[in-house]
């Protein structure tokens, strides 16, 4: 038995990952099936002198997270479906003002109150399009408890590096299941810390739209006094209605993510080399897919999987390349069809099939295998 | 924590035991619409009284037992039960406090 191997839930692993990443601040509002992230942190953070607060609702929770983040905190919140819908305005504010933070969405079933205790993957498109106006987002879909921990650390790093909200999209299965996790020592993982700008306050502009580099966000209260507003603003942070400033500001929000996609993207390929059927799957569905592929391979069907770990920005290039080689693509999702849209868009010429099961149960390997056989014409 | 759906299902059989069967006290077990009702009637302190306990609904919370001022009720295998109807004053507390519509005093 190794000291740093633990059995824990996906939600606990996120909390654990946050602590390792140096999380200073949690604000949240409970909601099934994400509440354990909050409950675990309500215990862990005070013990290490960090801040925990339960707010009056999800809007307030993300507001407090952003306030703390402007003070220089590594801050996180966690929620599920209805709470995520409420957070949309503040997600846009965080994007616009380029405030780093991590937002966990443990997905549950259905629109509206739906199925609070059952899993789904119905919020993947919301993650990208939920707030009004144009912005780019980073979203990560771990598929195991262990990955939940490490991807949470990565989420904090990306948030600070690109000054952006980063979403972690898990689901009720990953969030509530218990698996073995190798808990790393803080020193064994790369951690990007909040730091002061390398220019003196007089020279500091809180935004930079043209150099291609992300300006660090100066923690408030350290001598860098600046203005933050959700109005379109110039590089000084003050509102502007100049057409060139507006266009630059808008371009920048997209470019800083898309032009750095090589650094942000993360994916896994499983037996794709010789695959004749490609399965694009993420989160818990990718686990069933892997099992289904093993079944298919045993039956002589050459199937392989592409698994986006960073789901936004979407790995367009990879899908596009794979689709040139593999002409049949299956996208199993615990929703009525979401990521399949992105696959269709990028895999022109391939045949793209959906397997959309939304009944409160995870998609089972059998179901995917059956579909693979159907596609293979068996 | 318990959504006792099972109690609502069809073939529930409930075995009852340990009566305090005295004179003038009648105990009847009825089944209406799949509900098992244990009806005890007799003469209480304020005259004739009948207490129905709907066994399927009772979740065994003990509120009726604890707050009956006259110790008329006891728990039996997690279901409330009339133990001595003769002391009943028809104060209705048990009925008011039963959260599960499982006790009716008449």
């Amino acid at each position, binding site marked *: 038995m190794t000291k740093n191997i633990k059995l824990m839930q996906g939600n606990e692993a996120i909390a654990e990952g946050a602590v390792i990443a140096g999380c200073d601040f949690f604000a949240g509002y409970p909601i099934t099936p994400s509440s354990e992230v909050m409950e675990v942190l309500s215990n862990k953070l005070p013990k290490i002198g960090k801040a925990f607060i339960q707010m009056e609702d999800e809007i307030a929770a993300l507001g407090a997270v952003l306030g703390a983040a402007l003070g220089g905190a590594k801050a996180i919140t966690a929620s599920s479906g209805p709470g995520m819908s409420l957070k949309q305005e503040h997600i846009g504010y965080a994007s616009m003002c380029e405030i780093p933070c991590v937002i966990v969405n443990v997905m549950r079933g259905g629109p509206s109150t739906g*199925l*609070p*205790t059952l899993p789904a993957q119905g919020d993947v498109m919301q993650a990208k399009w939920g707030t009004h106006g144009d912005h780019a987002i980073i979203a990560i879909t771990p598929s195991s408890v262990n990955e939940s921990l490490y991807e949470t650390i990565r989420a904090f790093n990306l948030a600070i590096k690109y000054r952006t909200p980063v979403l972690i999209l898990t689901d009720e299965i990953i969030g509530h299941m218990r698996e073995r996790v190798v808990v790393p020592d803080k020193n064994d993982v790369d951690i990007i810390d909040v730091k002061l700008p390398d220019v003196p306050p007089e020279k500091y502009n809180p935004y930079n739209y043209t150099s291609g580099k992300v300006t660090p966000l100066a923690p408030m209260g350290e001598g860098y006094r600046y203005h933050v507003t959700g109005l379109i603003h110039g590089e000084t942070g003050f509102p502007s209605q100049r057409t060139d400033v507006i266009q630059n500001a808008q371009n920048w929000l997209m470019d800083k993510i898309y032009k750095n996609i090589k650094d942000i993207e993360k994916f896994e390929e499983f037996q794709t080399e010789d695959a004749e059927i490609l399965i694009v799957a993420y989160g818990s569905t990718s686990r069933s897919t892997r*099992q289904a592929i093993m079944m298919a391979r045993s039956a002589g069907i050459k199937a392989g999987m592409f698994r986006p770990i960073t789901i936004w920005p979407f790995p367009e290039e990879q899908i596009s390349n794979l689709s040139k080689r593999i002409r049949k693509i299956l996208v199993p999702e615990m929703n009525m069809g979401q990521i399949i849209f992105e696959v269709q868009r990028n895999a022109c010429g391939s045949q793209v099939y959906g397997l959309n099961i939304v009944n409160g149960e995870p998609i089972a390997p059998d179901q995917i295998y059956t579909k693979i056989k159907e596609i293979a014409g068996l | *924590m318990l959504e006792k759906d099972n109690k609502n299902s069809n073939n529930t059989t409930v075995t009852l035991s340990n009566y305090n069967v005295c004179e003038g006290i009648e105990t009847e077990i009825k089944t209406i619409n799949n509900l098992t009702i244990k009806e005890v009637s007799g003469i209480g302190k304020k005259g004739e009284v009948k207490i129905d306990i709907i066994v399927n609904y009772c979740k065994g919370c003990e509120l009726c037992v604890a707050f009956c001022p006259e110790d008329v009720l006891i728990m039996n295998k997690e279901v409330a039960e009339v133990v001595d109807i003769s002391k009943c004053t028809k104060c209705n507390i048990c009925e008011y406090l039963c959260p599960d519509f499982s006790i009716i005093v008449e």
Partner: protein
Amino acid sequence: MSDRTEFRFSGSGGQGLILAGIILADAAAIYENKNAVQTQSYGPEARGGSSKSEVIVSDSPIEYPKATKVDYMVALTQEAFNKYINDIKDDGIVIADKELVTDFSNAKGKLYIIDMVKSAREELGKLLGLNIIALGILVEISGIVSHESIEQALMKRVPKGFEDYNKKALEIGFKLAKEIKNNK
């Protein structure tokens, strides 16, 4: 996939089935270095209804985390028995409590009716610990982890002052299971 062993604890909310599952998974994953996944299912908004806790143990990585072909199942309510018996393997083993489950018309696999409640009442004095008895039975009957491992895992999760009580419950489980084995 074939070395996958699937366990299911089923019953109702307050019976500590999730804890039993966790301890089993912990014993396998941490103390015996196997792969183990534990999952559960809830009613609406984290409460209510019949519930189950599942553990999958395997030497190879576990992908699909839910049980589909259950090797070992415990049922501590009639409702759970009815609801969760379906995907038991043909040669799977089902342990039902004699008092809490009375209708076996849906039975599948190999059924053992054991009076866990009675043992608990008689040997522990109360029903608290039924989950651990069930755990003991499944461990003993499956041989999935050693007694030592399960004990260690149990001790880690037991509140201070209840160590002996729980150890005793576990041993009652072992004992009941041995009786089954002997009767086989």
